[in-house]
C-alpha cells in the first residue's frame, strides 16, 4: 500500500515537474528517463536473472544506429524507424545470447564485452555507412502526426515519459509473472531450478532478448533526444554506465535502476562543471557503492524504513 502511494506520487511528480523546470533542466530529466529505461533493461538480466553483462550498450547502440540510419538515409517515419530499431536490438540480443549464454560469471562478462566491442568496431570503421567516429548527425525528431511537434522540449519529454511508463508497467508485469519468478529462482540457484523442471537456458535466453529489446528502445529514444548517433553509444563507457546505474540504484528492484539513472545524470552534470575527470569520479562512486551500500539506494531507503518500523 505504502509502495503504491509512493509510486503514484512519483508519477505525479514526473507529470507536473516539467512545468517548473528550465528547458535545460527539462533536458536532463528527459535524459534521466531514457537512461532509466536502459538501466532497467540491464537490470532484467543482471539484477533479476543474475547474468552480469558488460556489453549492454550493444543493444542500445543497435537500436540507436538503426533508428538514426533509417531516419537520415531512408525514410523519416517513426513507426518504421523505431519499430526496426526495436527489432534490430532484439535480434542482436538473440544472436549474442546464443553465443554468450554458454559462459557464466566473469566469462560471461568478457564475452558480452567482446561482442559489443565488435559492433563498436564496425560502427567506428565503416565510415560510408555510419560516419565513423564523426557520428551521424541530423536525426530529426519523429513526427507522429500529433498536433504538438516533438521538436519542443516539453512535448518530447512527455513522449519519453509515455515510453518510460510503458516499460515500467511491462517490467512490473513480467517480474511478478511465473516467468519473472523463475528468473529470480535462476539467480538464486540454477542447479536447483534445473532439477525442478525449468529449462534454465531458455529462460535466460528469453530474458536476454527482452533486455536487448528494452535497451534498443532506450537507444532509439536517445537518438531522437540528441539528434545524433556516434560509436560512443555502443561503447564500454555506455555499458559500464548502465551497470553502475543498476548497482547504485539497487539491482533486482524494479525502480532502483531509475533512481540510479537519476543520480548518475545529475552527478555527471554537476561534476562536469568543475572537472574533466568525470569517469574517474564515476569509478570511485562505483567502488564506494559496492563496498558501503551493496544493495544500492533502494537498499538504503529500505534499511531506513525497516529500522524505523522496528
Amino acid at each position, binding site marked *: 500500500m505504502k509502495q503504491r502511494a509512493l509510486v503514484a506520487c512519483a508519477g505525479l511528480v514526473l507529470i507536473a515537474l516539467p512545468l517548473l523546470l528550465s528547458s535545460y533542466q527539462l533536458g536532463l530529466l528527459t535524459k534521466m528517463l531514457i537512461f532509466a529505461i536502459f538501466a532497467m533493461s540491464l537490470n532484467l538480466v543482471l539484477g533479476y536473472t543474475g547474468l552480469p553483462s558488460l556489453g549492454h550498450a550493444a543493444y542500445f547502440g543497435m537500436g540507436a544506429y538503426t533508428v538514426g540510419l533509417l531516419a537520415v538515409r531512408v525514410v523519416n517515419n517513426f513507426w518504421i524507424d523505431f519499430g526496426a530499431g526495436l527489432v534490430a536490438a532484439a535480434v542482436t540480443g538473440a544472436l549474442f545470447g546464443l553465443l554468450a549464454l554458454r559462459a557464466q560469471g566473469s566469462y560471461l562478462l568478457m564475452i558480452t564485452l567482446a561482442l559489443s566491442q565488435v559492433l563498436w568496431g564496425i560502427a567506428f570503421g565503416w565510415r560510408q555507412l555510419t560516419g565513423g567516429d564523426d557520428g551521424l548527425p541530423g536525426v530529426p525528431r519523429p513526427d507522429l502526426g500529433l498536433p504538438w511537434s516533438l521538436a519542443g522540449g516539453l512535448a518530447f519529454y512527455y513522449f519519453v515519459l509515455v515510453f518510460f511508463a510503458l516499460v515500467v508497467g511491462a517490467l512490473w508485469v513480467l517480474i*511478478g509473472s*511465473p516467468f*519473472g519468478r*523463475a528468473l*529470480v*529462482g535462476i539467480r538464486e*540457484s540454477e542447479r536447483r531450478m534445473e*532439477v*525442478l523442471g525449468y529449462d534454465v537456458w531458455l529462460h535466460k535466453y528469453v530474458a536476454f532478448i527482452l533486455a536487448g529489446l528494452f535497451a534498443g528502445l532506450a537507444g532509439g529514444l536517445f537518438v531522437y533526444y540528441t539528434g545524433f548517433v556516434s560509436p560512443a553509444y555502443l561503447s564500454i563507457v555506455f555499458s559500464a554506465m548502465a551497470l553502475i546505474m543498476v548497482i547504485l540504484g539497487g539491482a533486482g528492484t524494479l525502480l532502483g535502476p531509475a533512481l540510479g539513472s537519476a543520480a548518475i545524470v545529475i552527478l555527471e552534470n554537476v561534476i562536469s562543471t568543475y572537472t574533466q575527470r568525470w569517469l574517474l569520479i564515476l569509478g570511485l562512486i562505483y567502488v564506494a557503492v559496492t563496498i558501503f551500500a551493496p544493495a544500492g539506494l533502494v537498499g538504503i531507503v529500505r534499511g531506513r524504513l525497516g529500522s524505523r518500523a522496528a
Partner: protein
Amino acid sequence: MTALAVERLVHDFGGLRALAGVDFAVARGERLTILGPNGAGKTTLFNLITGIYRTQAGRIRLFDHDVTALKPHRRARLGLGRTFQITTLFPGLSVLDSVLLAVQGADAIRFALHRPLTAYPHLFERAETLLGEWGLLDRRDVLTRQLSYGEQRQVELILALAGSPRVLLLDEPTAGLSPAETAAVASMIRRFSRDITVLLIEHDMDVALELADRVTVLYQGRVLAAGTTEEIRRNRQVAEIYLGTDEG
C-alpha cells in the same frame, strides 16, 4: 515394474574413473539405499541419473523412457526429483516463494509472462498444503537463509516433493544434522507416499538400513554388493571396506 534402471554406467573425470560400469534397477515404490565410502561414486551416480553430468557411456531408463540423452529439466518433468548433499536452495527467497517455484516448475504455466503469479491460486494452495503437511507453515515468510540447518534440509525435501516426483533421489539428507534433526528428517522420509520410488545416499548406517528395502553398495566405482538390508548387514566384504571390522 522398473522405475529406474541404469546399465553399464561409466564416468571419467579426466583420467580418474569415478564409475566403472554400474548396473542396477529399482522397482516402483521401492526404497533403495546406495552405500559406499567417500569417493565410491555415489554423488556422481546421482548427477548422471538427473542429467547434471552428461552420460559418457551406458544407459539410464526412467519408467518407459530412455532418458540418457535428456537434459535435467526434461528428466524432472518425467517425474525425477532430487535433493542435494550440499544444501542447494534459494537463499534470498522466503520459504513460501521457494516452494511456489517448485510447484510452478511442475505446472504448465511456468512460462507464463503476462499475468502475475497471484492469478494462479492453485499454486498457492498446493504450496501451503505442502508446508502444512510437513510442518513448516509457520515459517513460510522466513528467508531461506535465516532457517536453521535442519529446517533447510526439510525445505530441500519439500522442494523435491513439490513436483510430485515418481522417483526421488536423496543425497545424504541427514548429513551434518544433530541426532534430533536426523530423526525428524528420517521420519519425514518414512512418511513419503509409497508411490514414490526413493533412492537414498546415506552415511548414517542406522538411518540407511532402517529406511531401505534394499541396499546397493558401491566401492571404487563398481557395485560391490546388492541385496536386502539383512544380506548387506551379514556381508563380510561390505563390513570390511565400509563398516570396519571388529579385528581392525
